[in-house]
């Protein structure tokens, strides 16, 4: 029981720590935005078509892509850097 409790505490601390770290990734420079956009344009037809037809960015509002890409990151186990590129591309339309 103690082991389970300790594991839960450790997991909670880990989630809090890495979650806060992930939140700081929003602030990127314009040059980084452009790099992400270019990478996203290359990845979009490849990653999406692996399972289904690639859907154009203007189908959804930018805020919706934030949610959908999180969902797709989990389903496809997409690398985090590539996910940032994809969402940048889809939100820029």
């Amino acid at each position, binding site marked *: 029981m103690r082991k389970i409790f300790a594991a839960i505490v450790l997991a909670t601390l880990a989630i809090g720590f890495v*979650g806060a770290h992930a939140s700081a990734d929003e602030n990127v420079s314009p040059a980084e935005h452009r790099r992400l956009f270019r990478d996203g344009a290359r990845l979009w037809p490849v990653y999406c*078509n*692996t399972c*289904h037809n690639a*859907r154009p960015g203007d189908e959804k509002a930018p805020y919706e892509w934030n949610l959908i890409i999180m969902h797709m990151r989990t389903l496809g*186990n*997409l690398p985090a850097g590539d996910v940032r590129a994809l969402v940048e591309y889809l939100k820029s339309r």
Partner: protein
Amino acid sequence: MPTRQIFSIFLFACAVVALSLVGLARAADSDGGDAAALKEIRSEMRQLREERKRDREVIHSLEIKVQQLETKDSKVETTTQQLQSTDQKLKETTLELQQTNAQVKTLQTKVDAPIPSPEFGDAISRYLGTHSFTITGAAGGNFVYDQQSGALDGLHSASQNSFFFDWEPMILYRPTDWILFEGVISTAFGSTGTGVDLSTADFQIFLNDYMTVVAGLFDQPFGDWYENQSPMWVNRFVTAPLPFGVEPVVPPAELGVQLRGGAQFGSLGQDFDYTVWGGNGPSYTSNVLGAVVSSPTAVANSQTNGKSIGARFRVYPLPVDSEMGRLELGASTYNGKWANGNWFNSWGVDFNYFIGNLQTRGEWLQSYRQMPNGVGADNRQGWYVQGGYFLTDLNIPGLPGMLNSYLHRFEPLVRYSGVNQRGVSTDDIAAGTGVGQGGFQAGLVPDFGINGSPATYAPHSREVALGLDYWIAPSIVWQNEFDIELPRSGGVFVSPTGAETPAGSIPNDRAFLSQFTIGF
């Protein structure tokens, strides 16, 4: 004769002689002059012949020169034409380059332009709040025609000639950029009326770039089918392949926790990913051989007292820029205990490859179920392989452009799938399994996502599915499927008491399914 006469004759003769002599003399003189003239003429003729010969030689020489000149002229003309053609091509290429440069400049301008309107986006984000929410999912209506040719070993048989509708909303809720909640509810009107099922409901916590925790009810991350291919607008066919149909080889879902993530190991697109998970474990509709392995929500895990663990590893070896397409190779395993500690083990491999308009994928999976009371193991195998080709680049000469544009939207498909298992529970056949989308599938007739015709319940089932999809938009499709069931002999049917009867004749069923689906 008188003398006068003689004298006259004599004179006449003398005169004749004299004249003859004069003529001869004159002739002699004349012969000398003619010979000279003749000689001169002959000499002139020789000269003339020589001159003629020279002239001929000169003419021949001139003719050769003329021919040579003509040949040269022809070559010059050809070269001139080639130069003109090259010049034209150069002009066209220059024009294309100018157009391309203009396009590149336009694109560069767009790329270099500031990312659009942060103020407006920020305003909308503030209006929407920090907790965002959206609904996606899919909806579809279909028509099924299945005129069954006979009963399955004296068991129930039915025919289908009906319309159905299915709606599967997915709710996504994002309280922060590292937490997401996802829930899918399947609601449908099917062969037994309206049904509702909770398909998935889980939290996704993004720990870092390489680790994500998923906790709750989720599609089984075994292979590719349940997680990635089962949504109706994603599946290229109307029905699932046999290993994921009425007699699934591994459970379709799990209630538990996952740890998963992915990373790039080479160039852009060269990735690998992993998923490990544990859960409540497999459960079955009954303890008899051939009982259906169930969704966690269907039997509430009454058949299990053990937990499960699973793992999946996938690799994508081809870089994006190689233009060699996208290849996925994966391997999965899922193991646990059911019914008082009896083992369940399974493993499988899968692939997925697409390049251009061609899409292919396939899976092979196998499971072992330890049976209680000394009954032999309930082993199962399943597989499928499918391919499709978009007719995007097909242009039939002579066909109007509008018709060609319609033709470009078609995708012909073919799939071969099969399942081998020792036996099938007659309870499952008669009552339906509930493993389909909506959770109310009644068995022995096709329904949403599942071809439930009798032949698919055969212990050794085989199916060839022919498909023709018409894509109206990337997520809007009209799908048509013709299923040819080709069950093999062998295996047993198992009664609720466990009594086994060899499977007899099984009708080779045919079914037609047409479905209109929107992914939203």
